């Protein structure tokens, strides 16, 4: 069973603002029956340009219905410019979080909002621009890139959780992985060159803490940062790692790979015996 927060359950069992506004100022219609979830958002502005009312109709699971309900509550009373800033993460946060496999429900809410605002401005978003990558759910490369950038996605599984792409026949997994690499590495190479020495040191420490240490500790091992000399990262292995024959492989495939991914592609990890 999914672990839904009380807030999700509340919004699912008693959703706010269900329905459809007649003569709305904006309409956002996303999803489809065959996809398994769909959401129709309508809203109306008052004299001062504030969102006076928003209503939603949702087909889908509990988290889809809750996301629709949360979205309307968040929009009402805001100006268009303020409402525009609501992201899928804001919707998920408003609900006290969503199971990671259900993040696409908040993304769907966000898409409906974008569409409704575009509709109000008379600049409808062009349907499905870009190339379809996932044929099962009709997800384009542009949608995937957007989700990766906005939510800092790193794996195919995360892309599936947020966009549904790759959740069907799985034939597009290779293409999605390629897109992730392209999105991640292009801007990073340029950005990371700007790092000062202090910034670089902090980023290395953070990456070890967040990306590396947890997986080592799962196997009873650990790592200690000894020194940073230019691009040479000197580390010492601890716990189970220090007696492990495959420690050099781990240093190369995990530690160095992660540091190169998150800090700089020029880094070299070396083990010292301290």
């Amino acid at each position, binding site marked *: 069973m*999914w672990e839904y927060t009380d807030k999700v*359950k509340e919004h*699912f*069992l008693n*959703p706010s603002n*269900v329905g*459809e506004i007649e003569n709305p100022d904006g309409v956002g*219609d996303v999803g489809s*029956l*065959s*996809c*398994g*979830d*769909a*959401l*129709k958002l309508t809203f109306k502005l008052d004299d001062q340009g504030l969102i006076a009312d928003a209503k939603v*109709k*949702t*087909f*889908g*699971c*509990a988290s*889809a*219905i809750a996301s629709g309900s949360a979205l309307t509550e968040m929009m009402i009373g805001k100006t268009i410019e303020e409402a525009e800033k609501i992201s899928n993460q804001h919707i998920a946060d408003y609900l006290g979080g969503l199971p990671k*496999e259900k993040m696409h429900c908040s993304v769907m809410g966000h898409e409906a909002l974008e569409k409704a605002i575009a509709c109000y401005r008379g600049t409808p978003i062009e349907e499905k621009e870009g190339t379809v990558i996932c044929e*099962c*759910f009709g997800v384009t490369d542009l949608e995937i890139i957007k989700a990766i950038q906005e939510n800092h996605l790193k794996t195919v599984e995360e892309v*599936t959780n947020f966009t*549904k792409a790759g*959740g*069907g026949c799985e034939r597009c997994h290779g293409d999605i992985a390629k897109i992730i690499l392209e999105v991640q590495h292009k801007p990073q190479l340029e950005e990371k060159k700007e790092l000062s020495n202090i910034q670089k040191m902090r980023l290395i420490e953070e990456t070890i803490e967040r990306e590396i240490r947890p997986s080592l500790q799962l196997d009873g091992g650990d790592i200690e940062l000894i020194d940073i000399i230019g691009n040479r990262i000197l580390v010492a292995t601890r716990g189970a790692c220090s007696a492990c024959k495959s420690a050099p492989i781990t240093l190369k495939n995990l530690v160095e790979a992660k540091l190169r991914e998150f800090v700089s592609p020029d880094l070299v990890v070396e083990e010292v015996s301290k």
Partner: protein
Amino acid sequence: MNPIYVDNNATTRVADEVFKVMQPYFCELYGNPSSMHSVGGRVGPKLKEARKQVADLLGAHPDEIIFTSCGTESDSTAIHAALAVDPGKRHIVTSRVEHPAIGSLASTLNKQGYRVTEIAVDGDGCLDMGALEESLTPDTALVSIMWANNETGVIFPVEEISQMCRQRGITFHTDAVQAVGKLPINLKESAIDMLSISGHKLHAPKGIGALYVRKGTKFSPFMIGGHQEKGRRAGTENVPGIIALGKACELAGQNLHEENTRVLELRDRLETELIKQIPDAKVNGTTKQRTPNTTNISFANIEGESILLMLNEFGICASSGSACTSGSLEPSHVMRAMGVPFTMAHGSIRFSLSIYNSKEDIDEIIKQLPPIVKRLRELSPFS
């Protein structure tokens, strides 16, 4: 609130009688049956009795029963055995609607170089018998077809298939975890070579299963180690589990009549009333050849997880073939194989009853479900 549990194809409650007979084998009679002392010695006769109880339910000889840890292990054992004893043959025939215990294993074997034919089903969930017969070749090592489908309850003509296989010298295995205890089974009169059963589907606990292997069927063990189960399944016996499974099989034999009369009538009433009261609802799978406890109904334009969670608010526990509940993004492979449109598949609900269900349980579901469907349709942009 006492739950109204109608998810018995997922798992069942342990019968009181079963729980009672297994209890002494934890703290008092905890011996290892292989030991040469009285603590172990007192266990052996009880295992023998349990083996006979299982064999009796299946119309088999006790020597033909191998205890395993679960239905999945029984399935894996059967398939690996059939392939191991005939290493020259590289073809496996199965169906598109098997449980993952067979389905995922077949895909893995396919990746390892075996040729796999998955026989299709029609819109009623019935097997394409013509295609099955045509698929059999001299290279076919094994046919594995489930006896009854877990999602729809649809029964496959396994006797007919087993005859087809016997004529061609092909091993036939059936995953019968959903059939045992619900349908009369007499393996003496059958050409089935191997058959899997699972304890927790028939009121024994989780963690115990059995594999029937017909006398004379060539066999190769899956678990390697000690001499237990006459060398056919190594590993110290799950003594309390085996004793529980024995008792559960004895009870299942006694309750078979009730399953096919009272439980069947409850199921039929539930189905008829729901279809009558709820517009745009349809039964998935043929109603002609079905296990007596199962019905699978689709409600158009709404999503299964939402239905389940709202039912859960009333203490009603069922299951769904919808994408959202399966943990994947697509509806169940059974619904897709049957060609159920996505609009219907997302809103499919399975009710699977047991002898522990009462008329009141069914009345409560009939009372609660129609307003839930109505409410979810009001929320939906499609209706």
